[in-house]
């Protein structure tokens, strides 16, 4: 470490940024902390946006992560509705959208991702992406008045929104060029079960088909597929992933390559750490750089980054975890799910809607996935990394 840390700036006020602040305080850091957030809302939880917020089951006060009194007690200078626009790591200074320059001894970058958009059509009414409270409330309003939703992109977000909209009574179609939904997350075999789940609930799953363009003038009226077919729609969600929010770091000298590139301790430069969706770090156990866009990682990595900023210097080697809730089904997954792994059912039966699957790569368990088996998966998690022979005993 180079000198005593007295001032910490955290850029990004979602769960990773908030957790970094709380960790610093828990570890006894008593210097100043500034928390910069582009949105005007206090830190909130994003997973319910595509579920309870979208269906209207919850209002947004339900997803606020900490009440005002708790934020006050953290003794943090919150700057919400403010963007960081540039970083000078030599001067150790962050420039904000209001022109102010904030000096730091330690910096945590937790700016997340920005939804990817189609090349055109997003200016039409009825076309949404989904990342923020405002996105979710806009889509919710449109769904209430809508009749037919087309979701472009069958990843976790697209699948969750499809399920929520179907429950709300809309006609729903999901389009994706991949052969099955959630291919990148769970592979082809389990992806087929995801497709079946949606079809059983009345959602039209169109996989293996690309999208050519959005149709309409002021308001969207449909989606033209690569085949020339047009799907009618009065609401469209574009859920085709996101890219790390690193535009403000251009010219900073930090290594940017699909995220802020960090060493095994989440360090990007002297005194600069990154956490959450925006961070690509060297995972010692996996032996590769990874970037994880899941809720659990945002918390765990923020704890690691803040602890290391204070001098712990410990490699961050989590077992990645994600879950998704669609209809009455809960899917939970620990580890990694490489495209070349083979899937074996360890418990239960996919036909009965309850099972536990192991993903085997090079004779070792790379990941475990539970389908409506939330308790069983906890024990199975311990087997990640073990050889198949041991696990099958």
């Amino acid at each position, binding site marked *: 470490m180079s000198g005593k840390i007295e001032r910490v700036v955290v850029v990004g006020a979602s769960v990773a940024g908030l*957790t970094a602040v*709380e*960790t610093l305080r*828990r570890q006894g850091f008593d210097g100043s902390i500034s928390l910069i957030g582009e949105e005007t809302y206090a830190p909130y*939880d994003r*997973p*319910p946006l595509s579920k309870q917020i979208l269906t209207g089951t919850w209002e947004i006060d*339900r997803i606020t*992560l900490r009440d005002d009194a708790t934020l006050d007690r953290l003794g943090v200078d919150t700057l919400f509705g403010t963007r960081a626009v540039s970083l000078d790591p030599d001067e150790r200074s962050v420039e904000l959208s209001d022109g102010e320059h904030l000096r730091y001894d330690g910096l945590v970058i937790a700016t997340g991702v920005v939804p990817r958009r189609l090349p055109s059509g997003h200016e039409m009414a009825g076309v949404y992406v989904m990342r923020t409270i405002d996105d979710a409330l806009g889509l919710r309003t449109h769904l209430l008045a809508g009749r037919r939703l087309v979701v472009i992109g069958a990843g976790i977000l697209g699948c969750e929104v499809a399920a929520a909209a179907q429950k709300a009574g809309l006609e729903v179609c999901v389009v994706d060029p991949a052969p099955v939904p959630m291919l990148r997350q769970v592979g082809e075999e389990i992806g087929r079960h995801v497709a079946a789940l949606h079809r059983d609930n009345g959602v039209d799953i169109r996989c293996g088909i690309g999208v050519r363009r959005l149709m309409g003038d002021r308001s969207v009226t449909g989606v033209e597929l690569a085949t020339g077919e047009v799907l009618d729609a009065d609401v469209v969600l574009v859920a085709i992933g996101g890219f790390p929010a690193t535009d403000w770091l251009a010219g900073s000298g930090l290594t940017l390559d699909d995220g802020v590139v960090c060493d095994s301790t989440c360090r990007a430069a002297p005194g600069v750490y990154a956490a959450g969706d925006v961070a690509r770090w060297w995972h010692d156990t996996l032996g590769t750089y990874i970037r994880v866009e899941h*809720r*659990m990682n945002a*918390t*765990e990595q923020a*704890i690691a980054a803040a602890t290391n900023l204070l001098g712990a210097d410990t490699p961050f080697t989590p077992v990645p*975890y994600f*879950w998704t*809730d669609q209809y009455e089904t*809960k899917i*939970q997954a620990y580890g990694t799910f490489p495209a070349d792994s083979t899937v074996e059912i360890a418990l239960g039966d996919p036909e009965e809607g309850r099972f536990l699957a192991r993903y085997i790569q090079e004779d070792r368990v790379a990941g475990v996935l539970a389908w409506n088996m*939330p*308790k069983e*998966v*906890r024990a199975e998690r311990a087997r990640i990394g073990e050889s198949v022979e041991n696990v099958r005993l």
Partner: protein
Amino acid sequence: MHIEIDEEKCVGGGVCVMAAAAVFDQRDEDGIVVLLDERPSVELHESVREAAMLCPAAAIRVIE
């Protein structure tokens, strides 16, 4: 220390059980949290704080 849980928010991740098995468990059928000890003793406090911080649904509230 006093613990409050929000069952409606709980997503059944079981992270709390991994952090503090003496205080939290999960229902068999849906994995939702079961609070075993509303007022845990002092030696468990740090692990309970850890559980609350790690909970991916922010469903655990610790009042101290």
